[in-house]
């Protein structure tokens, strides 16, 4: 990473910028926007970035009031994995300290793989950080446990909808939306051009293109993996269905439906074509990406961070990869999961105000863009997206469009953390790939286990 960090960050800068334009257009088209984002039903995610007009002006001028500022806060940030990102964050902390006399920010980095356990340990052991970055699928879980303070910000109109949705429990928002990203289809232009193929726009296109590639080349058209449910779960949406519906304490799984069965059947179809090796049953997204980076696959579902890693690993692919929105399913949509992070203030913190101020500071356009440019995600605020400038990078623009126009959040329920932790989707996918469950039964199994989690 150290060798290539610079050129990559340049990349991010330009594509994040592309996203800005899109967000602006989207916001312009979207108009009004709903007052609360908790309803998981509609698939309008992102299109109505609420209250763009108000946000644009307010976000720039955060009040420099420093009365509550004195004191020390401990801030947990997910381990960025490279020094450039760490530097951006430590610089931000220093800038904040300079602005707020008497305030001290202690940044502590926590590895992703251990973060959930560390949060549980901190809460259970009675010593929590004041502010923390939290994966957006975990926020409802810890909010429901009473661990998090609600967000009451004047800037909340500026927040990107899908992140508001994923941080809202019972109508209250528990996380400052920091950043988000979405997966699209990454494909090899050299192979597609040679075979005269177009980038697939529907599930059927994908299968047809895959058949041609399988016939004409030694390269696998696309790999599916047993442990990559961010590829599989959104297919339920693409097929026109829902993962779950409800709000508050009462949620119902909706995977045992026509759309659910169609999604699992399509994933199984990709698997049964024999394009993926036997070992793919236990592969995860990193294995899929490694295979693509090695030139062994013509397409993959991945995010901007994946593409950056691929080109970093195998610079030879530069110029022969392109991106396109995820193919549309029978439900007529291309939605995917908007993954990202919130900044959350802990209820037990004795410096909640200062922690909240630092969160707001990190969400200021200047800070947020400096950070997201480094990590390959988009800012969680409209003003942030806006501030990232204007230009287009074809390669990365797709991810921005995907996020802003075609992304949603997983059901924002406390139970989702348990569903993820219990590996409901990977388990079932693997059983299906091993032939133990047919797609319909797999969908029913997921449904049943989700309901079990919802019922506590």
């Amino acid at each position, binding site marked *: 990473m150290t060798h290539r960090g610079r050129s990559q960050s340049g990349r991010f800068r330009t594509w994040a910028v592309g996203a800005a334009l899109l967000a602006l257009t989207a916001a312009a088209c979207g108009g009004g926007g709903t007052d609360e984002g908790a309803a998981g039903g509609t698939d309008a995610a992102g299109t109505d970035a609420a209250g763009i007009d108000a946000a644009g002006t307010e976000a720039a001028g955060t009040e420099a009031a420093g009365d509550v500022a004195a004191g020390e806060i401990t801030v947990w940030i997910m381990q960025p994995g490279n020094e450039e990102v760490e530097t951006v964050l430590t610089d931000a902390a220093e800038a904040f300290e300079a602005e707020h006399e008497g305030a001290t920010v202690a940044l502590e980095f926590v590895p992703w793989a251990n973060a*959930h356990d560390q949060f549980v340990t901190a809460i259970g052991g009675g010593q929590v950080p004041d502010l923390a970055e939290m994966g957006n699928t975990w926020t409802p879980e810890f909010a429901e446990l009473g661990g998090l303070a609600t967000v009451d910000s004047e800037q909340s109109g500026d927040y990107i909808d899908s992140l508001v949705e994923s941080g809202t429990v019972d109508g209250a928002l528990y996380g400052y939306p920091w950043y988000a990203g979405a997966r699209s289809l990454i494909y090899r232009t050299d192979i597609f051009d040679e075979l005269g193929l177009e980038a697939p726009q529907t599930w059927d296109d994908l299968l047809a293109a895959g058949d041609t590639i399988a016939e004409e080349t030694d390269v696998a058209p696309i790999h599916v993996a047993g442990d990559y449910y961010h590829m599989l779960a959104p297919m339920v949406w693409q097929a026109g269905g829902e993962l779950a519906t409800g709000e508050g304490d009462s949620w119902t799984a909706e995977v045992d439906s026509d759309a659910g069965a169609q999604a699992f059947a399509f994933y199984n179809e990709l698997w049964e074509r024999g394009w993926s090796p036997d*070992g793919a*049953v236990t592969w995860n997204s990193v294995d899929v990406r490694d295979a693509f980076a*090695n030139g062994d696959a013509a397409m993959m579902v991945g995010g901007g961070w994946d593409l950056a890693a691929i080109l970093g690993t195998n610079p030879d692919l530069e110029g022969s990869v392109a991106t396109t929105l995820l193919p549309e399913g029978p439900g007529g949509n291309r939605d995917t999961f908007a993954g990202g992070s919130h900044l959350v203030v802990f209820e037990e913190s004795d410096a909640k105000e200062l922690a909240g101020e630092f969160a707001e500071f990190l969400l200021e356009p200047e800070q947020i863009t400096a950070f997201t440019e480094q990590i390959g995600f988009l800012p969680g605020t409209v003003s942030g997206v806006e501030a990232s400038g204007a230009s287009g990078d074809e390669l990365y623009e797709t991810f921005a469009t995907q996020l802003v126009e075609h992304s949603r959040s997983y059901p924002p329920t406390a139970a989702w953390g*348990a569903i993820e932790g219990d590996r409901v989707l990977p388990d079932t996918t693997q059983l299906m790939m*091993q032939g133990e469950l047919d797609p319909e039964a797999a969908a029913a199994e997921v449904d049943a286990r989700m309901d079990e989690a919802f019922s506590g």
Partner: protein
Amino acid sequence: MTSTRTRPLGRPAGPTPGGRGTGGSGRGRRWSRHWFDNRALPRLLVAPALLLIFALIGYPVARTLWLSFHDAGLPALTGGGMDFVGLSNYTDIATDPQMRRVFVTTVVFGLACVVGTMVLGIAVALLLNRPFRGRALLGVLVLLPWAMPKVAAATVWRWLFHDQYGLVNWGLVSVGFSSFEGYAWFVSRVPAFTAIGVVVVWQSFPFVALSLLAGLQSIADDVVDAARIDGAGPWQVTRHITLPLLKPLLLVLVVISTIWDFKIFDQVYVMTQGGPARSTEVLSITTWREAFTQLDFGLASALAMAMFAILSVITVVYIRLVREDQGLSR
């Protein structure tokens, strides 16, 4: 085992080291030294260790036992309420087929790893106890698996066993086993546990080998020489002289290996995460999953108590098996 507790102070009794007062002058001094040697010293020597161990671990262990009888979520840990549920966590475990499978898996796989580790460890120690050129070098080389950082070891082993880009498959294919082309190690249980077992043994045999080598070095040469002169071959020396002398140490090593191998977490988590579809799940993974992802600390504590019970039984069995010789009863 004779107890000193009831013996009158100051009177030499039996073959215990207590009877020696020859160096002292005067009855009172002898008595006090005697008291010191027999009553105070042993406890003084043990006290720091006990203090260190129980000061930190005592409460967590007691807490685990307590929680195992309760329905305890995360709030319970911070002083919130929890309901006493009697044995229901335990009955939940006993009636869940997946849990039962996990117990069988853990015991079978754990014992297999112990056997593998011990056999390899003993073999290596015996080998290193022989004179040959390069012995010192090998002595350090075999310790290296132990020194390798776990993150690096896990990553490298994952690569080595990767179905597409792994060196293991590449090597097997290169020497003619063409069926290993793209062989998926982690898709079914037996090969997955084989791969994990290799990693476990690789990481734990150095400890056994090193300890046994140290034990072998402590055996006085003349015992071995005498046996040789009497016509014993190397195998007989090993079988009848060396190993019996090392029995107390072997017992310790078997017990420790068992504790480690039954508690295996990292290697499984890194290589398979317990998958596919929970087929390679072992007890510590299940316990972690219940505690940290389902936040069911009552059930997790009950699982921990079950692990404790199994390990206790096995340890006691081991000790019984070797007690006649020396074991714990000396």
